[in-house]
């Protein structure tokens, strides 16, 4: 028995240096490692692997490792695609999969406590038996763990409705080299909630040992349909309009022309609008054969991979129609109202019916089988998921696609849409060695940066994007490094991953503004960059001059308001801040969050806000002209009613409970945004209030945690109506 085995074995029940286990712990699913393996190069293997079973064992283990200087590599299910969890030579891999219980179900607050090593599908299956679901459904749900989801800021296929996984986590227990850390709902009062820094830290700060996550009732009703659009731009416009109209679809997937053609997604009409002639027909055949695994053997296809530029040029010549899959799910009374209202944004599209959309839903995991055969046939394949605001989205799509197209055959789809932007998922395949693979990534990542996007929306960073993420976060990394210093002073946690040591360039000052407190208005993405010290009324006036108002009205200057923001009381759909530019005392300036819902490391905005002087904040706005609808109901228990409605999936801009001073009946008032408002009011049996009173949502006095608050906002506040129980 080796000495590491003996020592670790004294702390954790199971440890091994068996080469079989070390080999398995040597890699995650980074395509680069797979490519090397296909070329006969085995991955590095760690010194040992262990399987802890309790939080306390981990605390002791990390304490020992920190003193002994042993690098620790947390390992969930190893489905990461960026090289985040393979064990390096000198390391101890800590596999979480023997910590996989549901430790508590709290129906009252719709919260579930779960251990990190549980596989996603097992969690959903177990919850389903209780009538509950997370509805976090990444394509890797069969092969990824709950801890890995949080550590790498995962997103599922229904994220447009339910949010990314980080939006579902309300508390975590974390073992760090300096002891136990509780986050979110359980973070010690008066202290900074380190939840946003732990999520996305990819095991570099500590090991997540328990998560408390929001759950929803299993959706009763699902509506899915497919539409064909004449071109990408018009389809993207429809997606944006739907997302900005508060219609909350669960599924929104738009395939670019190449991806649409592959597999004949539009049936025989798919190629109609594309080029004519023999060359194009041959190309179509090649493309469609990409969907058929056996085709990868054909000479035609190998040739295509070897000549990506030619193939991509032909693809660009296709122009061509695109396929949009749309879906809603949830309450059978709410969904039809949302669907009906969305029809107004689909005028230019051809309705392809429900069948293609159901086919997608049923076979949505099949695509995961398609990349492996490419390695078997001597090629490589990989995926890249980036995100940007609606304004920068299409230019970014073209820039990144062009950069990739120089080296590989590329197709893409747009999914994970939000009111402010969307992510793009590129799938590419090529032939060649590791150098071609590296060059492909390098050029594509550079294009993302130039296009103003984030280099990752949900796959995280690992080794693959460590340099790019470091560049993206710039000086804001100081915030991370300070927390790293206090949680992992010996630097033993997953060393070498996530960020590289580099001195970032200063982001420089924002361009001078001529618009008073509103520095910049991105009307397409509904984002305003504003002065963080201006008064709410000055901001409101300046926005109104442009025809906009706050989506979430502050009750004091943004700087103070955001510092007091309670991350937990709100659905994280209700994001109060996107981009943030702030200056440290030494004059260095940092600008982050300019692309939505990034997974490039942890969310550092909240820490940056504390540690540096904010100079500009990007906030969500809504057009003054947006349809709104105020409704109310008389009820002796406004909060019980609010909770019921919110749990059914209603997403009002605000709810207000009021008691009548003269002994009359208490009322619940709701402000609904968007074209579905009126029909929702009718379907839910609420009483409409005259339009004149549908003004701005009244500012919450305090972000509401408890039923005693008289105003709550956002949808998932319903999880927290009532006293959260202690864990």
């Amino acid at each position, binding site marked *: 028995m080796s000495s590491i085995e003996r020592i670790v074995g004294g702390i954790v029940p199971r440890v091994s240096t068996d*080469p*079989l*286990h070390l*080999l*398995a*712990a040597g890699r995650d*699913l980074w395509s680069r490692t*797979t490519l090397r*393996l*296909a070329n*006969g190069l*085995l991955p590095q293997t760690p010194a040992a*692997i262990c*399987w802890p*079973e*309790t939080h306390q064992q981990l605390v002791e283990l990390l304490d020992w490792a920190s003193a002994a200087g042993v690098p620790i590599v947390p*390992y969930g*299910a*190893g*489905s990461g695609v960026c090289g985040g969890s393979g064990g390096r030579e000198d390391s101890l891999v800590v*596999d979480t*999969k*023997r910590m*996989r*219980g*549901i*430790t*508590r*179900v709290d*129906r009252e607050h719709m919260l579930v406590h779960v251990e990190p*090593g549980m*596989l996603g*599908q*097992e969690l959903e*299956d*177990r919850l389903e*038996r*209780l009538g509950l679901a997370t509805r976090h459904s990444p394509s*890797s749900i*069969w*092969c990824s763990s709950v801890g890995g989801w949080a550590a790498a800021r995962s997103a599922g296929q229904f994220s447009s409705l339910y949010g990314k996984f980080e939006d579902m986590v309300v508390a975590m227990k974390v073992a760090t080299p300096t002891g136990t850390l509780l986050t979110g709902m359980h973070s010690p009062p008066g202290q900074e909630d380190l939840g946003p820094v732990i999520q996305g830290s990819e095991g570099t700060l500590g090991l997540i040992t328990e998560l408390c996550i929001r759950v929803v009732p299993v959706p009763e009703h699902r509506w899915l349909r497919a539409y064909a659009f004449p071109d990408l731009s018009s389809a993207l416009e429809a997606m944006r309009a739907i997302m900005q109209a508060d219609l909350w679809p669960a599924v929104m997937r738009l395939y670019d022309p190449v991806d649409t053609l592959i597999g004949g997604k539009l049936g025989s009409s798919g190629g109609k609008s594309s080029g004519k002639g023999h060359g194009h027909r041959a190309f179509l055949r090649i493309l469609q054969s990409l969907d058929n*695994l056996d085709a990868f053997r054909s000479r035609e296809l190998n040739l295509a991979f070897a000549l990506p530029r030619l193939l991509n040029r032909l693809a660009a010549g296709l122009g061509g129609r695109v396929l949009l899959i749309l879906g809603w799910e949830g309450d059978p009374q709410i969904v039809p109202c949302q669907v009906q209202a969305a029809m107004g944004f689909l005028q230019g599209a051809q309705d392809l019916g429900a069948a293609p959309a159901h086919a997608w839903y049923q076979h949505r*995991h*099949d695509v*995961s*089988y398609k*990349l*492996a*055969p490419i*390695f*078997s*046939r001597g090629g490589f394949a990989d995926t890249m998921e980036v995100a940007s605001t609606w304004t920068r989205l299409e230019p970014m799509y073209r820039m990144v696609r062009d950069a990739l197209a120089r080296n590989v055959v590329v197709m893409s789809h747009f999914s994970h849409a939000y009111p402010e932007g969307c992510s793009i998922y590129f799938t590419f395949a090529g032939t060649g060695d590791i150098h071609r693979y590296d060059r492909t990534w390098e050029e594509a990542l550079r294009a993302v940066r130039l296009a103003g996007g984030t280099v990752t929306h949900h796959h995280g960073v690992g080794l693959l994007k460590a340099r790019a993420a470091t560049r993206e976060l710039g000086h804001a990394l100081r915030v991370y490094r300070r927390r790293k210093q206090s949680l992992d002073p010996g630097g033993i946690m997953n060393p070498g991953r996530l960020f590289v040591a580099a001195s970032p360039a200063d982001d420089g000052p924002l361009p001078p503004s001529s618009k008073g407190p509103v520095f910049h208005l991105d009307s397409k993405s509904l984002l305003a960059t504003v002065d963080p010290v201006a008064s709410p009324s000055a901001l409101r006036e300046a926005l109104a001059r442009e025809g906009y108002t706050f989506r979430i009205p502050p009750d004091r200057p943004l700087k103070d308001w955001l510092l007091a923001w309670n991350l937990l009381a709100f659905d994280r759909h209700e994001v109060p801040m996107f981009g943030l530019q702030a200056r440290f005392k030494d004059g260095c300036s940092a600008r982050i969050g300019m692309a939505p819902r990034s997974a490039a490391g942890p969310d550092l905005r909240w820490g940056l806000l504390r540690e540096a002087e904010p100079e500009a904040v990007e906030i969500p706005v809504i057009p003054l002209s947006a349809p709104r609808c105020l409704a109310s109901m008389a009820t002796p228990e406004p909060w019980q009613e609010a909770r019921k409605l919110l749990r059914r999936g209603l997403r009002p801009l605000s709810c207000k409970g009021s008691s009548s001073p003269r002994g009359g009946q208490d009322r619940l008032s709701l402000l609904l945004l968007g074209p579905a408002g009126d029909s929702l009011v009718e379907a839910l049996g609420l009483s409409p209030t005259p339009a004149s009173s549908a003004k701005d949502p009244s500012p919450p006095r305090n972000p509401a945690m408890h039923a005693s608050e008289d105003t709550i906002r956002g949808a998932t506040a319903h999880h927290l109506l009532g006293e959260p129980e202690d864990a």
Partner: protein
Amino acid sequence: MPDPYQTCTFCPRLCRHVCPVALATGLEAATPSAMMGAVYLARRGLLDPSLAGRAAAMCTACGACSRHCKEQVPVGDLLSQARSRYLPPRSPEALAPVEGDAPRVAVECDTRSWAGALARKLREPVARLHTSDHLGASCMDHPQTAEPQISSLARLLDGRIAITSCSACAGVLRRANLQYVWLHSLPGIHVPTPVLDSPTMKLSPAPDLLPGTLPCCGQGGILARSFPQLAKDLARECASRLPATAVPTFDSLFRVALTPYDVDIYDPIDILLGEAPAASLHEGTSKGGEAPQKRTPLHGAP
């Protein structure tokens, strides 16, 4: 057709969540993809063949991965082939002669003797065949050990029908193409839940508690022999997923696996011997209750 070992090696482990061994043990090396990967590497000369043999020995051949896989890779068979290639053969224990002369033969594979009780119940003679290693179930990977065993078994049974309640014994009988019936399917042996006839196991403990079924308790074949600890993990996993009140089970192996745990066991042999009530449990007894369970999975058991 591409090399199936390679297909699984490069597959993003898309069936790991249905593999009972991978799930119960939490071992990365026990995922179907990793077991197949070890064989793939050994075949390419990149890994010590004995490691590939040990990897393959973790598979119980339950078939769950193949049923789930879109490519339908026959992992169980391929890993069995790998065992025959990379592991030394084991000799089965010599088969004892069949006691009695009757058209049906009770295959007794644990300490309980039930042929007589069955004869009384059926009011017809029943012969007895005793085996202490499940008819050599763990020797079936190697043709040089399997084939002689199969022929002597065929000789012993000599056209008679075997009766068993054990999935491992049934596996050998199936492999030998010999006729057999399940004990619980005989008249008068009242067992409470329906039996799912999966290719290698006849178990479906409380199907409503599991997505699909839990197809293996790990006690049969090579896993229990090569990795007794992994087999125990698997049994514990089975136990943790069953309702606390009752375990309807038709498999003596499963019974052995579950004995240390806090579950009531209904076994056709017990029922036959009058040691367990034949009362009908309502199907798939499930508390439908909320976690945490009575028996905390993985953590509480010995």
